[in-house]
């Protein structure tokens, strides 16, 4: 995601300098106009059934339009405006099909103001769930990745460690972390520690496998050079093997993050009785589909935010790869 943006940004920078084109400004303003139009449509066209927050929704849409107009005048929406235009059309279609015409079966499809209602009325509970999920995810993921990284380096570096640990990894590694769920919930003293363990486990295996294959695959000439220049073992591990392996480690970190998300939701649904996974299940149980969509949207933002953060960290740590790879 961030990677694609970066590549496109560089291409744009490489073009010969011309007078800044007016197209993005015009495009941005037309997208803003579209948002205003959706706002007008929302407030002027009466709902098929009573919805409490239609007025607030219209104001929110207008605020988005206003912000977008300002951003395009300040030339801050150079690349975003086609998306913003498409989003405005999407929201309009959603609004018309649900709230205005009632085309979609009622309890299963909530209109935009239904989601807004959830955010405005139920935000304390949602916020608590977000905090709970984020804490569980981040603590489990960090623990699992750190353990995986250390195990991977140890196994990749030392034949003796590899002899004992490799068969265990091979046997247990392919097992999905969710298969441990029943065991974890009775083996651990609390459901919180059990789910932290499961999330950590989901991150642990991909990080371990990628790290150890990376360490085992380091160009032996890198070691030769350091050794002739007086490097000791510690230097070879910390300053040669680990930096050379970092690109692999990040592949493992991305895979592990995906696995952690999956385990997090399952653990929350089955055992923890808190967090976004639990909220979704609870909402579904009460046929509160608006709440479910609202929680799904928050979860999507949380997950993609974490992925974007990891991309940022990678871009910072592996800046040397820029120009070596198609970044």
């Amino acid at each position, binding site marked *: 995601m961030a990677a694609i943006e970066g590549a496109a940004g560089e291409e744009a920078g490489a073009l010969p300098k011309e007078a800044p084109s007016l197209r993005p400004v015009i495009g941005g303003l037309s997208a803003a106009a579209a948002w205003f139009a959706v706002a007008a449509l929302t407030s002027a066209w009466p709902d098929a059934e009573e919805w409490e927050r239609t007025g607030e929704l219209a104001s929110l849409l207008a605020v988005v339009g206003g912000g977008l107009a300002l951003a395009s005048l300040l030339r801050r929406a150079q690349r975003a405006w086609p998306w913003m235009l498409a989003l405005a059309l999407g929201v309009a279609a959603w609004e018309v099909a649900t709230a205005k015409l009632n085309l979609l079966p009622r309890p299963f499809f909530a209109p935009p103001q239904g989601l807004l209602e959830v955010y405005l009325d139920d935000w304390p509970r949602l916020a608590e769930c977000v905090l709970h999920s984020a804490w569980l995810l981040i603590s489990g993921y960090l623990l699992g990745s750190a353990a995986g990284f250390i195990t991977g380096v140890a196994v990749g570096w030392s034949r003796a460690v590899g002899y004992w640990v490799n068969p265990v990894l091979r046997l247990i590694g392919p097992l999905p972390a969710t298969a441990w769920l029943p065991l974890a919930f009775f083996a651990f003293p609390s459901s919180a520690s059990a789910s932290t363990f499961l999330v950590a486990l989901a991150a642990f295996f991909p990080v371990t496998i990628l790290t150890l294959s990376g360490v085992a695959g380091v160009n032996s000439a890198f070691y*030769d050079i350091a050794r002739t220049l007086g490097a000791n073992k510690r230097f070879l591990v910390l*300053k040669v093997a680990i*930096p050379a392996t970092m690109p692999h480690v990040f592949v493992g970190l991305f895979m592990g993050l995906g696995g952690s998300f999956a385990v997090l939701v399952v653990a929350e649904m089955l055992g923890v009785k808190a967090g976004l996974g639990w909220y979704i299940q609870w909402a579904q149980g009460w046929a509160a589909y608006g709440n479910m969509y609202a929680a799904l949207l928050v979860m999507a933002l949380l997950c993609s935010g974490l992925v974007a953060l990891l991309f940022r960290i990678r871009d910072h740590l592996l800046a040397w790869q820029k120009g070596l790879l198609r970044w």
Partner: protein
Amino acid sequence: MVALAHKADDEAGLGLAVRNVSHAFELHGQTLPVLDNVSFSVEPGEFVALLGPSGCGKSTLLRLVAGLEPPCGGSLLADGRPIDGPHPSRVVVFQDPTLYPWRTVWDNVALGLEAQGLLKQNRARVDEALALVGLSGFAKAYPHQLSGGMAQRAALARALVNDPRLLVLDEPLGKLDSLTRIAMQGEIVRLWQSAGFTALLVTHDVEEALLMATRVIVFSERPARITAEIPIDRPYPRHRDDPVLVDLRHKVLDLLGMGSSW
């Protein structure tokens, strides 16, 4: 340049002895003999060039001198003591520059000092070494931003910065254009004269060997045996059209089986 040479003269050069060294590799289940009973010695401060056909075992011999592998037979001595592993007094410039892609050029050159824990006091030496090979402007560049020749010069700087007592050079100038090459040849010879280290140079360029070395050792096809040792008793700076060197060049090319083509 001279700033890089601060070793006291008595300990500058390292004496090397190669005694009946044989070496072989396993290749597809067969033994591939590479070095066949090679013996020679290098006096402290000497500049010896090794010449031989491609694939005869020159780089292998240098790996043994560096202490990266033990020989299958025979022994190698540095200052009379057996070589049992790498030591920063014997620095190798490998055929392939192999800079660390995750380090800037400056950090690559600083590698040896950092590994030995000497970097803090010697940061200026890194800058000097970079200036010596003409890469001052590229200190902050990453290796993939260098040309092949620049990478080779960076690898040379990475070796020189350690103030080696034996500098082992495996075709270090192979990728340079002819002008930079001539300049670097002169630079290495001047550095060798002022710093007083012992130099062991592998090259496939006969002229380069004759311009730089005090002695040339010629190897046979694999498995490498020594076919000739030719002292070159000419003062520096040498000139390629020096009639003595021109004669020697014909002689060496004859030994390498190339006489008729010149």
